[in-house]
């Protein structure tokens, strides 16, 4: 059985609080950081695409 908590997925329409992630950016071949706040400033839509693990199918 998968054990997951009840969170934002059940709350379509809510405002997502700011978050930051360290990234690897293949386009630059370098590490970086991304935040929702920065995307908001650039008026960008955000598509988050979660998957279980690298080196498996996505």
């Amino acid at each position, binding site marked *: *059985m*998968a*054990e*997951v*908590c*009840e*969170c*934002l*997925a*059940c*709350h*379509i*329409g*809510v*405002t*997502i*609080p*700011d*978050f930051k*992630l*360290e*990234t*690897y*950016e*293949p*386009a630059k071949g370098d*590490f*970086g950081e*991304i935040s*929702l706040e920065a*995307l*908001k400033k650039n*008026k*960008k*839509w*955000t*598509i*988050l*695409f*979660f*998957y*279980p*693990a*690298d*080196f498996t*199918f*996505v």
Partner: protein
Amino acid sequence: MAAEIITVSTDTKFVHLAWQREEKDLANVKYPMGSDPTGNLARMFGVYDEATGLALRGTFIISPESKLLNAEVNYYNMGRNIDELMRKFKANLYLAKKTDEGCPSKWKEEGDKTLKPSAKLVGRVHEALK
């Protein structure tokens, strides 16, 4: 594109680099690969599996105003359909401009029939979409 696609797993950015370099299917990847080693972001979105320490296949579309507009979560063993993701994304872009309309299930792109909720439409959706 008007959207930033960010892939997220609990792997570190170092593993993302190694995987992207090794896997030929990822040779043309342009999107940032996000690292969530604590699982905190996955928890926030309800896709963190405490039993395995992995994130389920969750897809979330967030507007430029930080509003969560779509969520889809699949179990480990099922991949996602990118056509459906793009359909939802295009519908969001359209609906952001046309705030008094709705995109029905068969809507695929701008120009396809939409619905305008009104008294006239009640019980007449079939005719409106014909």
